[in-house]
C-alpha cells in the first residue's frame, strides 16, 4: 500500500504531470470562482469558454478570419526565411560586408516597428497584404542576425586545419561553413516565427474592419467574454503549436551543438 502511495507521489512529482496538474487545478479554481461569482460576465468559466469554442468552429466568418491569418502567417514567414537567408548570407559573406552592412541592419532592427504599423496599412491597404508585409518586417531580422552569426563564428581552428589538409574554398563551404550555419539558421527561424506571429497578430488586431480584429472588437463591444476567451485561446494554441514545430526542427538540426 505504502509502495503504491509512494509511486503515485513520484508520478505526480514528475514535471510534465505537475505542469498538467497545475493547469487543470487553475481551470478548476477558475470554474468554481466563476460559478460562485455574482458577476458571471467577467469570469467566464472554462466550461462556457469550451462551449463557445465549439460555436466558433461553426461560425464561418470566424473560421475564415482564422484561416486567413494562418496563410498570412505562412506567407510572411516563408518570405522572411527566403529573404532573411539571402540578406544574411550577403552580409556575413566576408569581413568587409559584415563590418559595412551589419550596423545598418542593426540600426533598422532597433526602430520599434510597432510605430510604423499604420504606415503599413496606409501603403498596403487593410487587407492581407499589409499583414503579410508587417509580419515579414518582424520575422526577417532575427533570421538575418542568426545567419550572420552562424557565418561569422566558424571556429578558426577548423578553417586552419581544413586548409592545412588542402581543402578548396568550395570544400570549406560545403564541409565546414555550411554545417556550422545550419543550427544558427534554425535558431533564426524559431525566433523569426515568434516575431512573425507577433507582427501578423498585431496587424490583425489593429485592423478592426475585417479579419480577427473585427471579431475581437465585436466581442469586446458586445461584451461576449466567452467568445473572446475562446478566440484568444485558439490563437494562443496556434502560436504554441507553430512555435513547437519550429523548436523541434531546431533541436533536430542542432544536435551537435
Amino acid at each position, binding site marked *: 500500500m505504502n509502495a503504491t502511495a509512494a509511486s503515485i507521489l513520484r508520478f505526480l512529482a514528475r514535471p510534465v504531470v505537475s505542469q498538467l496538474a497545475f493547469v487543470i487545478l487553475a481551470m478548476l479554481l477558475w470554474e468554481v470562482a466563476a460559478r460562485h461569482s455574482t458577476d458571471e460576465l467577467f469570469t467566464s468559466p472554462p466550461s462556457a469558454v469550451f462551449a463557445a469554442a465549439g460555436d466558433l468552429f461553426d461560425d464561418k466568418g470566424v473560421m475564415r478570419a482564422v484561416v486567413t491569418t494562418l496563410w498570412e502567417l505562412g506567407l510572411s514567414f516563408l518570405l522572411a526565411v527566403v529573404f532573411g537567408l539571402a540578406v544574411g548570407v550577403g552580409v556575413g559573406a566576408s569581413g568587409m560586408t559584415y563590418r559595412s552592412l551589419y550596423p545598418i541592419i542593426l540600426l533598422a532592427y532597433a526602430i520599434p516597428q510597432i510605430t510604423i504599423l499604420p504606415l503599413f496599412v496606409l501603403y498596403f491597404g487593410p487587407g492581407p497584404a499589409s499583414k503579410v508585409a508587417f509580419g515579414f518586417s518582424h520575422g526577417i531580422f532575427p533570421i538575418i542576425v542568426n545567419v550572420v552569426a552562424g557565418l561569422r563564428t566558424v*571556429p578558426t*581552428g*577548423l578553417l*586552419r*586545419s*581544413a*586548409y*592545412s*589538409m*588542402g*581543402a*578548396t574554398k568550395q*570544400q570549406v563551404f560545403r*564541409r*565546414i561553413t555550411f*554545417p*556550422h550555419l*545550419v543550427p544558427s539558421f534554425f535558431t533564426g527561424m524559431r525566433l523569426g516565427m515568434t516575431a512573425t506571429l507577433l507582427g501578423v497578430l498585431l496587424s490583425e488586431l489593429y485592423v478592426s474592419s475585417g479579419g480577427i480584429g473585427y471579431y475581437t472588437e465585436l466581442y469586446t463591444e458586445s461584451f461576449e467574454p466567452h467568445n473572446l476567451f475562446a478566440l484568444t485561446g485558439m490563437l494562443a494554441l496556434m502560436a504554441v503549436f507553430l512555435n513547437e514545430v519550429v523548436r523541434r526542427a531546431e533541436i533536430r538540426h542542432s*544536435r*551537435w*551543438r
Partner: protein
Amino acid sequence: MAADSDSRPVTIRVEAVEHTFGGDDPAHHVRALDRISLEVFHGEMLCLIGPSGCGKSTLLNVIGGMFTPSSGRALIDGEPITRPMPAKIAYMFQESTLLPWATVLENIMVGLEFQGVAKPEREPRARVALATVNLQDFAAHFPDQLSGGMKQRVSLARALSLGTEILLMDEPFASLDEQTRMVFGEDLSQMLATTRKTIVFVTHSLAEAVFLADRVAVFTARPGSIKEIMTIDEPHPRGPDFMTTDRFARLRNSLYAQLRDEIRKAMREQQVPSTID
C-alpha cells in the same frame, strides 16, 4: 649554431626566417622570430621548446606553409614552401579541430577528401588509421561523446591517414591530463619506431621533450632564436623505464637550466603592458 656536419638527408630546411608583427605602424612592431636557421633530418623527431610567446608556434606555421614570414624561407626536400602542402605535411593542433557535426570516421574521411583522395579509397584508409590508434570501435561516435584524450587520438589518426612524410604537431597534448599524456607519449614513440615519419613537435613540457625527441631545439625569449640544440640519443620505442633513468633526469635538468633564464626574461617582458593586443 654551428653548421651541421651530419650526413643524414635533410627533409626540412629553415633559412634565416625572421618575422615582425604589427603591420604598417612601426611603433607597434614586435619582433617574433630572429633569423632562425634549422635543419630537420629525415625520420627524426624534433621538439621545439621555449617560453610562451617565443615564436615556436609561428615557426611551425612557417614550416607548414600557413604563414609567410617577413623574410627568410623554409624548404621541404629543397622546394620552398609558400602555402599548405597537404601531400607532404599533416598538421595536428592543440585544440580539437574535429568537426563536431561529423562522426569520428567521417572526420577522417573529410580530411582525405580535402587532400584529394578518390572517394572509394577514403573509407578503407580511414578505418585503417582508426585501427592504428585503437579506436575502431568508436567510428560512429561524435567528437562530443569522446574524452579529450580520445579526441586527440582521432586527430592523430586523421593526420596519419593523410600518409604524409612530415607531421607537424602544435602542443597536441597540452590540454590533456598528465597520465593521458604519458600513455600518448609511449604510443607516439612506438609509432616513431615503426613508421619513421619526420616530426616537428612544439611543447611546453620538459619531460615530454626529453621523452619523445631525437633532438630538442631550445628557443630564447622573444624575439625567438635558437639557443641550443640538444640531442637525446635513445632509440625508439622508449618506455616508462627510460623516464626513471638518471640520464633522463640529467637531460631534463640540463634542458631546464637552458630554459630558466629565458623563462624569467619572458615573464619580465609580460609585466610591461603589451602594445599589441
